[in-house]
């Protein structure tokens, strides 16, 4: 058996990604809070693929239980994919630190907590892969979502460091930076069609890139170039813009 651990398994990107890995012959651990809600989804995966699918309870903000969560896995995973994401409300976050903290802790602190534990195990085993789903929002701070963006920026930096550290142990770390994705998180937003990916496209990009040990994956691919431009707009102009 060969398990891939999907953390934040309720997100649409996670669900599509789990399908992609199950289709390609991996067994799947689906970890999320109130994971019982994923029962029908897990059943779908096992009818589709006949792989082993297990639901696991994990609260990304319950740091103190992360070690036990990982220790309790009978079979350690071949790889891990974190799809934890909380966009939150920028306006609320600016007024209420609690909301800011929730955004930061969900997108960054919690992921660091669990990945530290897994990274140590993979390093000892000298095998495994780690895929962290960050965001293009982390590439430059914008007024519309800079709390979320800065948490994702921190995550991207963390993953970069982790990649550097684990290189010698043959553990590959991939940073995924999705642009717009048509998911529950973005429902109701008016997204430009050409720049918006379906979760299935993101999932297949992730799978293919991970198999090839890509370091940083932008999906859709054109976001690499969009962000290159955005990153190079001089600050004295950027600060006046609304994008």
């Amino acid at each position: 058996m060969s398990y891939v651990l999907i953390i934040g398994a309720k997100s649409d990107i996670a669900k599509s990604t789990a399908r992609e890995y199950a289709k390609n012959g991996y067994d799947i651990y689906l970890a999320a809070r109130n994971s019982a809600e994923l029962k029908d989804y897990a059943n779908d995966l096992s009818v589709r693929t006949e792989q082993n699918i297990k639901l696991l309870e994990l609260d990304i903000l319950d740091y103190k239980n992360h070690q036990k969560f990982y220790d309790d896995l009978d079979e350690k995973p071949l790889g891990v994919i974190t799809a934890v994401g909380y966009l939150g409300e920028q306006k609320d976050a600016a007024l209420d630190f609690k909301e800011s903290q929730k955004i930061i802790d969900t997108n960054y602190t919690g992921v660091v907590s669990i990945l530290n534990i897994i990274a140590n195990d993979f390093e000892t085993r000298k095998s495994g892969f780690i895929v962290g789903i960050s965001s293009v929002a982390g590439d430059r701070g914008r007024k519309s979502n800079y709390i979320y963006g800065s948490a994702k920026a921190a995550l991207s930096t963390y993953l970069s460091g982790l990649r550097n550290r684990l290189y010698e142990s043959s553990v590959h770390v991939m940073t995924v930076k999705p642009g717009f994705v048509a998911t529950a998180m973005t429902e109701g937003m008016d997204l430009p069609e050409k720049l918006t990916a379906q979760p299935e496209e993101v999932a297949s990009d992730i799978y293919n890139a991970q198999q090839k040990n890509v370091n940083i994956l932008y999906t859709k691919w054109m976001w690499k170039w969009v962000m290159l431009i955005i990153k190079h707009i001089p600050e004295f102009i950027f600060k006046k813009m609304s994008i």
Partner: protein
Amino acid sequence: MSLLSWGLYPQVANKVFNFKTTTELNSIVSDNDELIPYGNGRSYGDSALSKNIINVKPHDYFINFDDKDGLLHVQAGVLLSEVLESFVPKGWFLKVTPGTKLITVGGAIASDVHGKNHHVEGCFSECVKEFDIMLADGNIVTCSKTKKPELFKSTCGGQGLTGIILSAKIYLKKINSQYITQTTIKTKNLKETFKAFEEYKDLPYSVAWIDCLAKGEQLGKCLLMVGDFKDDGDLNYKNKTGLSIPFTFPSFALNNLSVKVFNWLYYGKVKVGVSKQKVDINTFFYPLDAIGHWNRIYGKNGFTQYQFILPKEHSFEGLHQILTAISDSGKGSFLAVLKLYGKANENYLSFPIEGYSLALDFKIEKGLFELLDQLDEIVVKYNGRIYLTKDVRVSKETFEKGYPHIETFRKFREDNKMSNKFQSLQSKRVGI
């Protein structure tokens, strides 16, 4: 963002409703009229377009598979391609499949689709054991040929006008190869084409590509492709993703000349007489799925597919007249697909009847609808009918003449308070 149909015509504003639970769906249904369920948007015309659209495709869970009798239970938004991806490697195939695998199971029921084996296996409804559907009153009922037969006969082929199909149990068929032994017969004219269909009708799969621009003695020349699954145990199937048309072509890209060249190349590459090939599932059943968004080649004004069927006894005469009219008009069509169908089923609006059907693509342009009206007259004259799943323009009169069960269907809708609740642009036009 408004949804479009596969023909990219008409482009009309609509409101899209998503639902997560059946309770949410229930309130959408009770709060709104003019609703129509929408699957993967592969109906060509306006059968799945309305003021209010219910997006069913996200409901795509597999629920159960019983490998004793090949019974698959899925939610309505599952694509046929997903069924193939999971089950061809285990030696199962769809009993009935249309020429694209990119449709939902719910859509397959609502259109009561048929395929190359219609003369043997009939329509999609033949493989449907039962389905769950939310009706106009918000209740969910389970329906089969024997349990609520009227609802079954109205829903299969009923274009989504009886409710929202939520899940279905369908029978798959056993196969022992992902390959098909295909025989291609190149004919010289319509007479030979008909003769060839009859000669090969014992084979389970058959379809012909006709060169619509051929005139005179060559009128009706075709490539007839017939075949059956091999038995070599090779089930190593994968869904192919190939080329995709990245943007909508300018409308002038497709003209009479380019179609002539295409048809000439396509027809010309096959040697005269009978030849045999070994082809895979995708090549045999789904040649166009290999090109993503192929609907964009017809330009931004969109296109339509004109598909009609004529009773067998009038097929030759009728087809001869229609092909002559098309050829005279000079309006091109890449694909004209001819097929001999088996007996009609009992569903009120299912398209197939015993006879020959022809399907042609036309880009939407000036003069097209006049030509199609002219073709309609020939279809009506020979007691034929038009396929609603492809249609975007047929008149109420032409439609009604083709479907003798229409009053039963209308009455069923009225009796069950579906008439205002579920409507499409098409249902309003043809008055169902």
